[in-house]
């Protein structure tokens, strides 16, 4: 790939990544309870990191360097999924009841 | 202002904050946290001040690296002391 095309794809992926981070943060700020906030962080931020890693891997100098970047993503996914579960379970153990729509209550 | 100088100044403020905390705070755990913050401030000053011209300086970096490891060891020792103190306090009661 020529360098200009690489830079273009890299920039596109990075911006998409940043968008999902923003979505995660907005969700965290606006969602009503800890369970919904968990959804925001475990889904949006993780995809944000995925795109960010992809955007940087496009720029990487060697295949191994790119793979090293891409390796970080599944590691974070595994950690996020596990920690998300631990927090949700803990929240239930603490007796925090989930937020419901007024008509569902 | 260079990056090094900025973090050195932040380090000064952290050091003073940690020192005040270590004197004022009552709980053992808070005192330990305050000491750690104080130490981190000193580390930032060490490295930041040496690099205020923007040239990385390996000597303070190596010192701080060992400092961090010693800090975690002393934190563990201090926590062990705090536990022993709490346990002895319970016995006297």
């Amino acid at each position, binding site marked *: 790939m020529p360098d200009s095309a690489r830079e273009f794809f890299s920039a596109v992926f990075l911006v998409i990544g940043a*968008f*999902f981070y923003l*979505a*995660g943060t*907005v*969700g965290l700020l*606006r*969602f*009503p*309870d800890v*369970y*919904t906030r*968990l*959804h*925001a962080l*475990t*889904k*949006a931020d*993780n*995809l*944000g990191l*995925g795109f960010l890693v992809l955007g940087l891997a496009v720029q990487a100098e*060697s*295949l*191994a*360097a790119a*793979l*090293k970047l891409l*390796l970080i993503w599944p590691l974070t*996914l*595994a950690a*996020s*999924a*596990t920690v*998300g*579960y631990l927090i*949700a*379970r803990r*929240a*239930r153990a603490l007796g925090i009841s*989930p*937020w*419901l*729509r007024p008509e*569902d209550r | 202002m260079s990056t090094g100088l900025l973090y050195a100044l932040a380090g000064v403020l952290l050091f003073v904050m940690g020192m005040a905390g270590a004197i004022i705070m009552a709980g053992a755990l808070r005192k330990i946290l305050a000491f750690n913050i104080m130490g981190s401030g000193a580390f930032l000053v060490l490295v930041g001040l040496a690099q205020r011209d923007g040239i990385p300086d390996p000597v303070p970096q190596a010192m701080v690296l060992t400092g961090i490891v010693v800090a975690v060891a002393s934190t563990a020792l201090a926590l062990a002391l705090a536990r022993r103190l709490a346990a002895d306090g319970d016995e006297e009661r």
Partner: protein
Amino acid sequence: MRVAPVLRRTLAFALLWWVLVEGSSVSWGIGLASVGLATFASLRLWPPAHWRISYAGVAAFAGWFLLESAKGAVQVAALAFQRRPDLAPRIIEISLALPAGAATVLIVNVLNLLPGTMCTDVEGKILRVHVLDGRLPVVEEVRAAEARIARMLGVTQ
């Protein structure tokens, strides 16, 4: 002990080492030692099981997973940017068909990353799932995820 899993794991950790050192070939000594130690630790912590993992299944699963996790993020983004987030959360209970152990762990992890589901509890075969939008056909999606995992690991449901 069978040789194949040992070889497979050694190869995987050697690949990890190659990626970490970014292809450098200096000083393989430490590399060999740590790959050996890692393989030993992995065999101790996770003795080889008698699954028949299908590689085509893994590839298909990975593609599906990437697509679904993108969907999940888009769903969250859409909800987050709505003027009034249209959430209809509820907690549902699903009885798992997958065998206990690794397959269950995998489905819990996968559900946490897939659109609109977040596991809060596992009791035996009962899975309690927090759902972002209870109006969507979540149970069907969980069943589909189960089927894919079963196919990939070669286990019967």
